[in-house]
């Protein structure tokens, strides 16, 4: 048995003092004195002082209404703060997106705020190490580099890269890039720049994810989507999936076509195992079957659906036999599914970025939209598919561009492609909520490419790979619980939502909101750039942005709800087509095809440093903390369940444990994203493997691999 713990500080201190006085000769005093801060489970439990505690009475608690910033879903949250410390996050029951529910990712935000490995202030690389630097020095250094670029008339040599975060800070970065005169602005928000957003622009005229009408849907077909795991609207979908099953008068039916057993398959009423990347063919086959059921009706007049004539011709080739050959779904299931979709309206086919992660992603999205047109899903009365409601914020007036900016914007810029950055490295690169040294395909090559850039600046609050391996300057942002932000969540409701994040605690460290840093940089650069970003602080920029807010709609604590849905366009445009997915690699040497997926705790790639998310099983039935590749037993002969293997592609190799799983399509290997960090804090480092080492530029799922026993 261990000796009993000292009962109080004073006794402990007394014992420590006695020990010191008596020296080493005292027998039995094996435990040294432990300061209360290092001994959280002692009776004298004392939390270290935290800035902002002075504003609270002893044990005073306050609740703050805010919005979650962990993923693009942007749920409403309430944060419980006691004596200046955030101790609890709950969903906001007034927010129509989440109605009090909250995702695991949102809950884990506290661990992000209080991450022991956060950056505590700005850093500069000196002699290969990151050393502290003052904010003024750091800002002067960046501003000097930026000013030099403009003085040399080469503003296009600035690369501005913003990650997944949606909000005013993102807008300020975009405005900085524009006023500065660089076309090299990389928008990493999948909702805006992804394949689906592009296809929605083509179909509905709005370059945003659409609004899926779950509330009234009777039947939903998920086409290889990460519906309840990787989707950026997962919390809303979870609520809707439950409500449509048990809370509604009629029960909705969810059918999921997917290559492996995941949470979406688990939750579906029916799971159809489909050959990966072929859901476009499934959609076209269903469209044909549904059109065949109504020879007398003219369901798709050209006046409403542009491309309707071509659609009939294209789908004619997708007979049930052909679709079965392509997808592996048997003809009987196909016919039944077509009948159900047709009879149980409103129904729609759902796709997301995971559905479109193949070489034929755009075609899959177009095929899904063609099926939706056949189902009459666009602006269907009770459910269906609509364009995202317009942002409630009026468009910002275009900044006035000077001659340098006009010239710079006319030159070719970077769109985030590795080869282009290797060929012509920018002079300065700013990374906000982006970690290409880990999260892009071929991280090792990325590190070399970024090392060739004279000044790499990261705004990450965490010691991620881009910070540790390549950044020359680090200007750490606050976490979202410490700063103001104005953000529009990924569209889910047919009414616009604008969320307002507030600082719920005082900043823990010497960090600064990136919005303020952008404004400070603009002031230092001066001229037209300063004129375009005139606000003294980010808070004032927020107020200025809100000043033009439309009066229609209701303001609530933490969010604003628009009154009007998006108007229906005169017609929608469909351009159906299908190409089989292509796979890179020699089939003889690399017989398996690699499927990458975003597990529940992925949080857009940034959840790896949060142990609560790390613990979550990456797939149904897995143990906590597991990180495994799943493969059908027939596809890995001689490999034992649980063995560590080498997974090798033409581009690289990783070591990973294998789980033999008959519920995975034979010939494929399924690997979760989010593992294999070599930085990013103690919980992320060394856990799992980074599948980005295996793939090249282009779609996520297009690489052939092989499994070798015994590791590399």
């Amino acid at each position, binding site marked *: 048995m*261990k000796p009993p*713990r000292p009962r109080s500080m004073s006794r402990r201190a007394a014992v420590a003092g006695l020990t010191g006085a008596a020296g080493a000769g005292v027998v039995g005093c094996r435990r040294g004195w432990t300061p209360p801060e290092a001994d*959280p*489970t002692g*009776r004298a*439990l004392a*939390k*270290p002082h935290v800035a902002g505690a002075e504003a609270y009475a002893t*044990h005073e608690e306050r609740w703050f209404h805010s919005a979650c910033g962990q993923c693009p879903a942007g749920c409403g949250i309430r944060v419980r703060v*006691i004596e200046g410390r*955030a*101790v*609890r*996050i*709950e*969903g906001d029951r007034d927010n129509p997106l989440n109605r*009090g*529910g*909250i*995702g*695991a990712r949102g*809950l*884990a935000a*506290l*661990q992000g*705020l*209080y*991450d*022991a490995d*956060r950056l505590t202030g700005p850093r500069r690389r000196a002699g290969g190490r990151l050393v502290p630097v003052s904010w003024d020095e750091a800002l002067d250094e960046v501003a000097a580099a930026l000013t030099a670029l403009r003085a040399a008339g080469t503003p296009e040599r600035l690369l501005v890269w913003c990650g997944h975060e949606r909000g005013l800070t993102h807008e300020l970065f975009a405005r900085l890039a524009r006023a500065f005169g660089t076309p090299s602005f990389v928008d990493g928000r999948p909702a805006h720049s992804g394949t689906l957003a592009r296809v929605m622009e083509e179909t509905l005229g709005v370059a945003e994810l659409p609004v899926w009408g779950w509330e009234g849907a009777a039947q939903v077909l998920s086409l290889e989507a990460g519906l*309840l795991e990787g989707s950026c609207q997962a*919390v*809303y979908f*979870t*609520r809707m999936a*439950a*409500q449509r*099953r*048990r*809370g509604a008068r009629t029960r909705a039916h969810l059918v999921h076509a997917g290559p492996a*057993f995941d*949470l979406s398959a*688990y*939750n579906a*009423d029916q*799971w159809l195992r489909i050959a990966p990347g072929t859901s476009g063919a499934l959609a076209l086959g269903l469209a044909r079957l549904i059109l065949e059921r109504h020879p007398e009706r003219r369901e798709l007049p050209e006046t409403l659906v542009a491309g309707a004539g071509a659609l009939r011709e294209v789908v004619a080739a997708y007979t049930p036999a052909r679709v079965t050959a392509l997808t592996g779904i048997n003809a009987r299931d196909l016919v039944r599914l077509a009948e159900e979709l047709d009879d149980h309206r409103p129904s729609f086919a759902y796709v997301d970025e995971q559905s479109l992660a193949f070489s034929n992603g755009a075609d899959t999205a177009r095929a899904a939209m063609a099926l939706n047109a056949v189902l009459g899903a666009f602006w269907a009365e009770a459910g269906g598919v609509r364009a995202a409601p317009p942002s409630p914020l009026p468009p910002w007036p275009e900044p006035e561009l000077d001659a340098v900016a006009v010239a710079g914007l006319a030159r070719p810029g970077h769109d985030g492609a590795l080869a282009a950055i290797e060929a012509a490295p920018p002079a300065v690169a700013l990374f906000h909520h982006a970690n290409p040294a880990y999260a892009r395909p071929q991280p090792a090559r990325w590190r070399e490419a970024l090392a060739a850039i004279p000044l790499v600046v990261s705004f990450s609050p965490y010691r991620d790979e881009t910070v540790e391996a390549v950044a020359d300057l680090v200007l750490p942002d606050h976490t979202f619980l410490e700063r103001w932000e104005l953000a529009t969540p990924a569209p889910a409701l047919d009414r616009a939502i604008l969320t307002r994040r507030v600082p719920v605690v005082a900043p*823990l460290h010497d960090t600064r909101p990136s919005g303020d840093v952008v404004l400070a940089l603009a002031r230092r650069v001066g001229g037209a750039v300063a004129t375009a970003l005139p606000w003294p602080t980010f808070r004032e920029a927020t107020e200025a942005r809100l000043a033009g807010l439309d009066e229609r709609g209701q303001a609530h604590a933490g969010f604003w709800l628009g009154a009007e849905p998006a108007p229906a366009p005169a017609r929608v445009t469909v351009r159906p087509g299908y190409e089989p997915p292509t796979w890179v690699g020699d089939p003889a040497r690399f017989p398996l095809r690699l499927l990458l997926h975003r597990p*529940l705790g992925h949080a857009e790639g940034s959840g790896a440093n949060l*142990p*609560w*998310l*790390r*613990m979550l*099983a990456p797939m*149904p*039935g897995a*143990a*906590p903390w597991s990180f495994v590749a799943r493969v059908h037993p027939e596809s890995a002969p001689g490999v034992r369940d649980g063995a560590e293997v080498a997974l090798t592609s033409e581009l690289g190799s990783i070591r990973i444990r294998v789980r033999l799983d*008959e519920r995975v399509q034979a010939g494929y290997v399924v690997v979760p994203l989010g593992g294999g960090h070599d930085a990013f804090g*103690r919980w992320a480092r060394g856990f799992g493997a980074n599948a980005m080492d295996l793939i090249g530029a282009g779609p996520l799922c297009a690489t052939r691999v092989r499994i070798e026993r015994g590791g590399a």
Partner: protein
Amino acid sequence: MSAKDPNRRDLLRVLGASVGAGVGATAGLAASAGEAAAAPARTRRWGMVIDLDRCTLCSSCTVACKQENNVPVVGPDDEHVGAQIEWLSILWQEPEQPGGLPQGMPFPCQHCADAPCVKVCPVGATYKNDEGITMQIWDRCIGCRYCMVACPYGRRSFNWETPRWDGTQIQMLNPDVATRTGGVVEKCTFCYQRVRRVRERAALEGREIEDEEVRRLPACAAACPAEAIVFGDLADPESRVSELARDPRRFQLLDYLGTDPSVIYLKRDRR
């Protein structure tokens, strides 16, 4: 063993109740003398219904539980396999038939009406409170783990080592719940600290607890986006939880053992 010695057990239980006020104040869980005065007039039996047809296994409940109750993170090294502290986790059952699909369910302490863990505790560290919750006084636990052996659901966890909260992580601990030390067994308490808050508020306002204010009271129920977890008084036939508990889809885990869990599941339905 003590289970064969009802007199001794009862004695310990009585002792537990009398000492409970003092020790429990430190643990932040047992009823204090002040609360005893404001004890409800009628008998309550707090219970929970988990609708597996609504549940999507998003795991929010498991994370919310850890946050609310200062549940330490254990892992990820191999030496920690099986040493996880789990008040609430997802239970997966592999299919009995080959080719079938596994089923999952949120899995908290079942708060049995006839709790085997209570019967075996030699020191009265675990006991049934007068509202039907199986409680645990951390400070009294001697770490013998008899309760873990007795619990047919495996819903108790042992701290093999004293939990650590690295650096600033200590700031986020919920001050309403005491942290536990190495050598102590811990378990779900139905977020009793939250139940007590509601009771105190109702007492201050001179009214009974409303069903509406407790439906999503435990952290798991509050976080659930699917609203699959409903909490309430099973002794009140009018409560939402009682209404759901009468659903034909209801079942209790290992009901043949006669433990009469206060956690009632509603069957999953896939068509």
